[in-house]
Each structure stands twice: as C-alpha cells, then as structure tokens.
C-alpha cells in the first residue's frame, strides 16, 4: 500500500483510511464504520499516488440508492477498490464478466445461466449439497482438531461450484489456489509465486492477481476446447458454449471470463460466511445453545450470520453523470464505494445492530447486494451455510475455536485464511 499524502491524510475523519487492508485484517472496521455513519456518512476518501480517491458510502439507504440506479452508477469501470489512477495501457479492454457489465447487456448474459441458480434449482441440489457436506465432515471424524478453513469451510462451496461447472475433483485444489491468488493478492501468504523481495509490496499484489488470472484463464481455455470437442449435457461451461446473445455466440474470452467469475465468486464468499459463522456462534454461546436446542431456527440464524459477517466488504461503482447522494454532490467520473458491513449495522435500519440475534426479524441485510447485480449465487450460499451448520453442529456439538483466526489482508473480501478448531469436547 502506497502512503496517502500528509495533506490528504489530514482530511480523513478520525484518520480512518478505508483503502488500508490492515484495518479490515485487524477486524477493526466496524468501529470505523460506526463513527463514519454518525459523523461522515458520505465522505471523500482521498486516494494515493497509485489509487483513485472515492466517495465512501456507509448508510443502508445510500447503498440501496446506488444499487437501484445501475445506469447512473456503473460497474464496467471496475467493482473492487477505487481503481488505479494511471491504469496500464489496455486495461479494461477485451472480455469482461457479468460482474463488470452494465445494462442492457448484463441481464442478457446473466439470463444464460440464471435458471441454474433459482430457488427451485437450489432446492433440487439440496440432497447433493448435504451428501458433499457429509463427505467433508467424514474426513475429519475421529480427529481432535483441524484447520476449519482448509479442511471444512472452503471445501463445500468449492465442491458445489466446481460440480456445477463439470470440473473433475482433481482440478478443485487448483481452483482454490487460483482464487486465493486473485482475491487474496494483497496478502503476503498468497504471494508465494512472486520474487521474495516483492512479497508484501504493491507490485507483489499486482503480479499475484495477474498470475492467478492467467493460470485460471489458461485452465478454462483448455476446458473450453474439451467441451467443444466433447459436448456435455448440462454443466455451466457447456451451457455457455451453446449460448447466444443478440444472435451471436459468446467468444472464447467471454466464456473464460464468465467461468473465472463463477469459480471465484462461488467459492470465496461462502467459505468466509461459514468460517465467520462458526466464529460468531462460538463468541455467542447463548445464541449457539439456543440454535443447537432448536435447529428449526437455522434459516433465520443463517440470515443473521450473513448480516454479521458480510463476506464482501465492498463493491465500487463509477458515476456516469453529476448527481447527489444525501445532499453531497458527486461528479461524473468519480468513484463511489458501498460498504456492506456498515449498511448491515446501520442503526437506522437494524434494532440494536451490534447484537447477534439468531431470531432477528425483520433482517433485510444487504450481504448479497440488491438489484441489477444481486448475487447470482445467493440461493446456493444460503443453502450451503445452512446445511453445513445443520450437519456440523449435529455431528460435532462441542466444536470450539482453538486459537485466533488468521484474517485476510483485504478491504474487499472479509476473509478468514486459517481457523484452528477443536472438534471434540476438551478432556
């Protein structure tokens, strides 16, 4: 992270700089957001010599407003972070996936696959999700402890999305690895493939993300060639191969970008909802006891886990015209960043927002966003989190966290890299 200039730093409310992954890695963002909601609900977070500044949005209603106007606040100029001040030539050209696509093309592309993600599709997949969950838990049966992230929480969403895409199990570890490089690029742990003197630097992060994308996209070009030569019935890759938008087949680049998104979005976020869910349940033993005594509360508990963990810290947009939010003028071309953990603890929306309440009602959190870009995989995420905790708490009723979680250095993903747990009751 390049430093912010002293003049710019002086303008930060209480010195809070949301460009810093460290704030999130230390899990200190909630206090920062509480201050911002009260004192600076729409404020300009200055950039650095490398990154653009941005308007920071922390109120629930403001996130709703931006999400409801996808033509005014577009995604095609980037959705993670505030973007580079001086992007390298060629960046932003070529193929993009639906997450960085605007209306009207966005919905046309999304509709190619969205039947596979509807509540009905999820319901049909439930027995399979439960079977996979039990296979994962069987592997740690008889053990006293494990790394919950590596051995449990990451494994279910990885298996589900890779299964939907028709990828054989031998490829799943690579998908996990590439995803960590792409979304965890700013964390030294995932920079193992860059030169030692670059680890922990801006260049190390850039190279790591590029390497992850290059490897993931290369993998999918091979898969695509295979599906073209050996068509299959109903996996997502084959559906994309056969699809047309506006009378035209998708290009190789379109399909590869789509597959990259499905794998990354499908396995990273749910992993962190499950890891974060176990952490919060262990931190609130009364709520956990209530849930274990009354498993029918699980769907409501899942919603509270999603509100509480908000697996994605932010999405960013770019204004296409001069506009206003909460009376603050926003100029065309400026970035706005929507902070989900803040909206999900907004005192104007949620009663006692810092209380973890598995029966909270209403609980209209924005963990999946809303509107045009509402999380395509929300139904699967909900089902995976619910089924995992149903099976986990049934089979390991005494599971406890056994050491501090190691969190991801990122202001984008609320990631947990490692979580030591004790699976059985302490002797």
């Amino acid at each position: 992270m390049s430093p912010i200039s002293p003049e710019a730093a002086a303008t930060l409310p209480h010195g809070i700089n949301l460009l810093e992954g460290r704030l999130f890695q230390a899990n200190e963002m909630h206090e920062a957001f509480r201050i911002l909601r009260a004192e600076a609900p729409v404020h300009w977070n200055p950039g650095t010599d490398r990154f653009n500044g941005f308007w920071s949005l922390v109120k629930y209603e403001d996130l709703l407003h931006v999400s409801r106007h996808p033509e005014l606040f577009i995604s095609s100029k980037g959705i993670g972070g505030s973007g580079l001040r001086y992007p390298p030539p060629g960046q932003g050209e070529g193929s993009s996936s639906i997450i960085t696509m605007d209306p009207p093309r966005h919905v046309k592309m999304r509709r190619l696959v969205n039947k596979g993600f509807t509540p009905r599709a999820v319901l049909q997949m439930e027995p399979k999700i439960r079977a996979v969950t039990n296979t994962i838990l069987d592997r740690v049966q008889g053990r006293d402890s494990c790394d919950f992230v590596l051995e449990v929480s990451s494994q279910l969403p990885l298996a589900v999305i890779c299964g939907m895409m028709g990828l054989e199990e031998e490829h799943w570890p690579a998908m996990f690895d590439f995803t960590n490089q792409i979304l965890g690029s700013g964390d030294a742990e995932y920079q193992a493939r860059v030169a030692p003197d670059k680890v922990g630097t801006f260049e190390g992060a850039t190279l790591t993300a590029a390497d992850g994308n290059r490897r993931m996209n290369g993998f999918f070009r091979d898969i695509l060639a295979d599906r073209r030569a050996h068509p299959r019935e109903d996996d997502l890759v084959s559906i994309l191969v056969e699809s047309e938008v506006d009378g035209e087949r998708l290009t190789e680049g379109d399909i590869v970008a789509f597959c990259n998104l499905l794998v990354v979005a499908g396995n990273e976020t749910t992993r962190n909802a499950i890891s974060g869910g176990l952490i919060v349940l262990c931190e609130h033993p009364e709520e956990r006891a209530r849930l274990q005594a009354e498993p029918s509360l699980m769907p409501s508990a899942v919603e509270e886990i999603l509100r509480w963990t908000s697996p994605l810290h932010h999405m960013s947009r770019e204004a296409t015209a001069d506009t206003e939010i909460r009376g603050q003028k926003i100029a065309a071309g400026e970035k706005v960043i929507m902070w989900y953990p803040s909206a999900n603890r907004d005192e104007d929306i949620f009663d006692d927002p810092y209380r973890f309440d598995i029966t909270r009602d209403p609980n209209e959190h924005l963990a999946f966003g809303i509107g045009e870009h509402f999380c395509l995989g929300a139904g699967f995420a909900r089902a995976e989190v619910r089924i995992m905790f149903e099976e986990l708490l049934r089979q390991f009723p005494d599971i406890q966290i056994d050491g501090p979680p190691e969190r991801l250095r990122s202001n984008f993903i609320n990631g947990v890299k490692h979580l030591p747990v004790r699976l059985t009751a302490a002797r």
Partner: protein
Amino acid sequence: MSHRVEVDQQMCEGHGKCQASAPEVFEHRDEDDLSHVILDEVPDTLTAKVDRAIRLCPRQAIRWVS
C-alpha cells in the same frame, strides 16, 4: 384510487419475496418459476404491502405503472 403494478420478467429470478409480502397481488408460478401480478388494479388497502414488496425484491424487478 387504485394503481397498477408490474414485474419485469427479464429481471425476476423467482425469489418469491413479493408473494410473501403481498400474496393478494403477486403469485409465483411453477410453470416459469417467476412472479406474476394477479390483480389488475391494486386497491389502496394493499398499497403499503406492494411498496414493501418493491423495496424487498432482490432484483428490484417490481414497479408501479403510472
């Protein structure tokens, strides 16, 4: 006074939140797995429920027709 409401079928993904908020107005149909408006004119007594459905729709696919 009554009003008309519509569901954008291009946007709808069958989450069913509207039917849960205002079952008198919205119906989730099995044949296409989407929500449909089943009341031509929404009476004032149901306006608040429809407003809630509009607010909660994950895809923001519902709107009043003037």
